[in-house]
């Protein structure tokens, strides 16, 4: 993009942009950045370390990482601060990639193309699956940062004692159900675990469920422009039928809502032999599982599949041209291969670019811990996470339907048809 266009697009900051954009000697640009902590580990310490390292390399810019709670809290605080204005409002944030519509509809986002002024080929360095939730109206509104995808973890000791090959994950839906049956004590008194499988369903059940829906052929749960959902397609209903049957018919998974937060604990305590959860838990599981464990891709059905998840970097419109240039510098620095590789190894998030996986550090890490590559290899089957206008409200409607079916209040088809009708009513006014 040419400089002239950049000035036109950035509107309010045009005056500021007309001033010399090079930072004056001795003046330090401050960039407050809000970030959440969504996985175990010393995230805050790592973030502060990155800010310090970046400042050493770029003395003219100081990034202030400000911890703002969960993803949900971060978006609440960022939008509240941006609406309130003032100097302490964040210039950047790490927020859910699916909150793109939430921010976009509030008019607070600067597209990445406006930051780069033409040089945005580097965006192609990320895995395409991670950019899918960033694109809207022909532009890119966020940069992949702490990204994840669900995987299946299994307890090798439990597999062995149930007579299963401890080094092989279930390959497909039928196999996962059969394995789980042999690993459930009610069906096999010799099982070392009480339950065969746990797919958590508290809080945001849609995410793991989306893995099942994709595998059943429902590639997207919503249209890319965020105005339409596919909650009541036969594929989506079929996926929910399978999930509900795991607990209500096959009885290989606990009935009712399974808590997301305590599921890793259940796994460590041999309450369940297999669990679905985020790859962001990998470091946590590696540290705490008292038995050898395996990490596998989600089992396939009609196809392989998994949703992407996690958070991206956003830049807000309250920035001056100088601050935007500085923000871009930080984004380029923190998503560079070495930095991305380090972030991945320290947290369990998936390094977001193929180049990062070519770094010596990550190669060494993989040689000692091959399980870390499973999530990366699954990326070629990954699809964008559910995201629409009024994202939280539409997602809540969908979550309620999933929970109603999982707790036996409604049949899967009935629950999902109602969710689709509710979502249609909410999204009606965004369809032009």
């Amino acid at each position, binding site marked *: 993009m040419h400089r002239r266009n950049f000035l036109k697009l950035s509107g309010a900051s045009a005056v500021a942009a007309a001033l010399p954009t090079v930072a004056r000697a001795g003046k330090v640009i401050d960039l407050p950045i809000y970030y959440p902590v969504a996985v175990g580990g010393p995230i805050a310490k790592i973030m502060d370390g990155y800010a310090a390292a970046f400042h050493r390399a770029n003395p003219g810019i100081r990034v202030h990482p400000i911890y703002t709670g969960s993803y949900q809290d971060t978006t*609440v605080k960022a939008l509240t601060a941006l609406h309130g204005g003032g100097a302490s409002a964040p210039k950047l944030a790490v927020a859910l990639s699916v909150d793109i519509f*939430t921010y976009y*509809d*509030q008019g607070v986002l600067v597209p990445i193309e406006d930051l780069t002024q033409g040089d945005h080929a580097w965006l192609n360095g990320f895995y395409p699956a991670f950019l899918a939730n960033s694109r809207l109206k022909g532009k890119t509104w966020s940069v992949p940062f702490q990204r994840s995808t669900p995987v299946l973890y299994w307890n090798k000791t439990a597999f062995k004692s149930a007579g299963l090959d401890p080094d092989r994950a279930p390959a497909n839906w039928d196999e996962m159900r059969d394995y789980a049956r042999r690993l459930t004590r009610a069906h096999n008194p010799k099982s070392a675990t009480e339950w065969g499988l746990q797919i958590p369903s508290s809080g945001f059940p849609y995410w793991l469920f989306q893995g099942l829906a994709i595998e059943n052929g429902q590639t997207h749960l919503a249209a890319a422009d965020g105005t339409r959902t596919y909650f009541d397609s036969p594929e989506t209903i079929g996926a929910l039928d399978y999930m509900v049957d795991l607990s209500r018919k096959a009885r290989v998974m606990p*009935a009712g*809502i399974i*808590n997301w937060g305590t599921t890793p604990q259940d796994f460590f305590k041999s309450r369940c032999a297999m669990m679905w959860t985020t790859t962001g838990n990998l470091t946590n599981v590696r540290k705490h599982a008292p038995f050898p464990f395996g990490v596998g891709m989600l089992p396939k059905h009609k196809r392989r599949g998994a949703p992407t998840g996690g958070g991206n970097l956003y830049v807000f419109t309250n920035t001056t041209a100088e601050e935007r240039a500085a923000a871009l510098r930080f984004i380029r620095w923190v998503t560079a291969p070495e930095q991305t590789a380090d972030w991945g190894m320290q947290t369990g998030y998936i390094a977001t670019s193929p180049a990062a996986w070519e770094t010596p550090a990550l190669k060494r890490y993989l040689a000692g811990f091959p399980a870390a590559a499973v999530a990366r290899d699954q990326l070629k089957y990954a699809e964008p996470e559910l995201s629409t206008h009024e994202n*939280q*409200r539409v997602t809540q409607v969908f979550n309620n339907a999933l929970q109603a079916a999982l707790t036996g209040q409604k049949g899967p088809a009935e629950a999902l048809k109602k969710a689709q009708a509710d979502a249609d009513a909410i999204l009606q006014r965004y369809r032009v």
Partner: protein
Amino acid sequence: MAVIAPTLPRVRAFRLGDHVVAWALIAPALLFLVVFTLYPAAATLVQSLYSTPLAHRPSHFIGLAHFRQMIADPTFREVLANNLLYAAGSIPLSVALALAMALLVDARIPGRGFARMAYFTPTVLPLIAAANIWLFFYTPGYGLLDQLLNRLGLPGVNWLGEPATALWAVTMVAIWKQAGFFMIFYLAALQQIPPSLREAAAVEGASRWHSFRRVTLPLLGPTTLFVLVNAVIGAFSLVDSLFVLTQGGPDNASNLLLYYIYQTAFQYWDGGYAAALTVVLVAILALAALAQFLFIGRRTHYR
């Protein structure tokens, strides 16, 4: 003012000064009341009559449309019904428990100081911390409750994960949290009852139950009413535990009015509708406060 009035004729010259002093004295309290209570309440009422602004659609006057939306909103009806059940469960139980605990620690029992402290501890804990403790109690499989059930040979229960039990599990936390607080009021009231009354009843040959029912309980009347009103307010405002325990799920089975307001305002970013819901909540709480003034004011002669 009634006390000062008879002296007014003699200090007529200073009346203006009196008014200034009086206003100056109430000004700090009045300021805080206006800034933090009256203005927000009025602003909420006004906001509830306007649509929620969007980036491409500014806010405009829509009258009572939000309130009509509320009547048609099944989630609103569900959270209101849940909140009434929550109130009906938590209020009588926490008040009865508070009275029982107060009677126990008012009596001369060994370790009385320790018992008083133990009963009061839940009140001092932040609700979020308390909810995390209960999250462990309720965890299926190895949580405290399931361990107890297993030891008795009973199957475990997914307390927070089943619609039939989620709301009651949340109610239990509220009872546990509030009872100790109410106990303090009962304890203070019990210690103000002159021992001579109970001694007189004993001399008359009244049994302990009779003495409690005919002497102690009536004298605790004003305290009970005060505690009840506070319990009603608590039932509509103490919802922090939901953030930790259930997030209102499964499928809104444990969702309460204030949590729904939070969801509407800060998850769905629908400020206008959230304001309308807040107006309903404020009306409920104002009714509770009004009841306090009307009834307690009339019954203080017991003291």
